């Protein structure tokens, strides 16, 4: 920062140095790689990635307007101010919800996907699927099965409850040209003549169309154009039947399990790690790393992070990064893997190996943005007893 022409004081010097550091801010290379994994297919496809919207905005704004109105009225008429908590006032201002009307309800036993399930006016249906998943069909809806024998919402609204799937396994539903894939969650799917909509109540859902996807989390909703009712192309995501004990064959289940080598498993692994399930995350990453492309490379690198930070197995993490280096000697995350090995070796007290790795890093990447960091670490390790 080159602002004051007079002599800088300590604060200005600090600001200047910190802004200088901000210019050199490297950020998370893995995050950049993850983004690349999501957008790399853009030039090859005509469809663009799907977008998501947050459902909270409109109800929240409506709630805010009501609250502002209530507060304004109470402020203007202080004598009439009742001794209610704001929460009670807010609740009392919301229109009452009518009790559900009695409707006919069908329960379709699991493993009977031959004929579509239809509901008429004032009717709903609950369909049990293999693996403990269930779907509730609203009135005037149709649930069928597509060519892959996945549940397919053909018309109307359906609410799915999917128990958590085994690592690497995924439950998929089709809706028009889209595939909605989940690990374990509750979500609603709506299909009308011109659009498909998805609302997520719990967990994480990915909506796919061809090679494009959007990731939705609880509270998100998304809608996409129908553009015909042809089932989505799935050739880029071959079935993984047999890859997991929970995988169901098309013959016995309407719910098929799919593999997405372009990053979905990575997303799920991150989600599992966030939920405090590092073992599941590691299993997903390990599965993903066996594939090819950027997602496999990311997964091979991230296995080390999960082992070190999630499972507290630093030696295994070093081995995982070593495996990454062997497989991707010129990979985009090579420098990150090298650096992670240096840091982890120092952390476990293997100072000699850490120093050797640090020196190799400095020799290999003389212009690295992380050079100062590694040099400091090497100096610290060299000075350690």
């Amino acid at each position, binding site marked *: 920062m080159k602002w004051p022409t007079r002599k800088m004081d300590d604060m*200005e010097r600090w600001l200047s140095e*910190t802004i200088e550091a*901000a210019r050199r801010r490297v950020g998370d290379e893995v995050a950049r790689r993850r983004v690349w994994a999501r957008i*790399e297919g853009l*030039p090859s496809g005509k469809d663009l990635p799907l977008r998501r919207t947050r459902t909270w905005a409109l109800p929240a704004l409506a709630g805010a307007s009501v609250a502002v109105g209530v507060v304004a009225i109470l402020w203007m008429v202080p004598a009439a101010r009742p001794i209610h908590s704001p929460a009670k006032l807010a609740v009392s201002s919301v229109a009452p919800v009518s009790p559900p009307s009695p409707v006919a309800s069908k329960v379709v036993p699991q493993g009977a996907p031959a004929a579509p399930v239809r509901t008429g006016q004032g009717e709903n249906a609950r369909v049990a699927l293999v693996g403990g998943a269930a779907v509730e069909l609203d009135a005037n809806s149709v649930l069928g099965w597509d060519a892959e024998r996945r549940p397919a919402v053909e018309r109307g609204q359906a609410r799915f409850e999917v128990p958590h799937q085994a690592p690497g396994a995924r439950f998929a539903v089709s809706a028009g040209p889209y595939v909605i894939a989940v690990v374990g969650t509750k979500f609603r799917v709506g299909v009308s003549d011109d659009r498909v909509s998805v609302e997520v109540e719990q967990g994480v859902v990915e909506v796919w169309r061809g090679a494009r996807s959007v990731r939705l989390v609880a509270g998100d909703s998304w809608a996409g154009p129908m553009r015909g009712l042809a089932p989505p192309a799935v050739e880029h995501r071959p079935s993984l039947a047999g890859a997991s004990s929970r995988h169901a064959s098309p013959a016995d289940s309407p719910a098929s399990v799919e593999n997405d080598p372009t990053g979905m498993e990575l997303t799920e692994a991150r989600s599992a790690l966030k939920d405090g399930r590092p073992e599941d995350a590691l299993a997903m990453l390990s599965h993903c790393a066996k594939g090819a492309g950027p997602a496999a490379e990311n997964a091979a690198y991230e296995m080390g992070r999960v082992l070190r930070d999630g499972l507290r197995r630093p030696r295994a993490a070093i081995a995982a990064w070593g495996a990454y280096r062997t497989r991707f000697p010129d990979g985009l995350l090579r420098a990150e893997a090298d650096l992670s090995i240096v840091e982890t070796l120092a952390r476990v007290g293997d100072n000699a190996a850490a120093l050797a790795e640090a020196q190799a890093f400095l020799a290999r990447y003389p212009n690295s943005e992380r050079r100062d960091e590694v040099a400091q670490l090497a100096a610290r390790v060299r000075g350690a007893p």
Partner: protein
Amino acid sequence: MHQQNPAGSQRPRPGAEDQALVARVRSGDALAWRTLYERYAQPVFRFVSAFGVPPDEREDAAQDVFVAVYRGLKQFRGEAQLSTWIYRIAARHASHLGRRRRMRSFLSLLPWHDVEPEPQPDPAEKASELRLLDSLLSKLSPKKRMVLVLFEIEGLGVNEIASVMGCPPNTVWSRLRHARAELVKAARRIER
């Protein structure tokens, strides 16, 4: 590939090379798309970070920016430098996210609304100074923050910033002067 700008940060060199790159991406060249991404991913991530997008939203923000870049390449006529154009997209998107975040923050004050969890710091940014700088920058108005970030951190020239923000260069100078003064003032307040 990169040039050292007056403020010291590295950013992509504009010019014919970018034009050729854009033409290749438009023709569906996947390698060119990757080159464009690798050239601009770091500036975009750095910009959204400095503009206050929380760590857990940066990936989505960067993805949205690059999707918008890809979508808009057909309309890119080369009248501005590619970097300026990408910064303009990133600035618009970061501003949009900022407005959404402020609205969310306002709504979280309402009694029946769930309190928004504080964004977790990016583990890759160990330096507490950078976090403190982010906190100081958050005290500036969005326009002043954008000018300061683009000038001081991204190293854009005043004319380029004017083009990104769609305002006259004198306005940029004025916002920059005020932003610097307010930043120093905010830092002194914390010091005390």
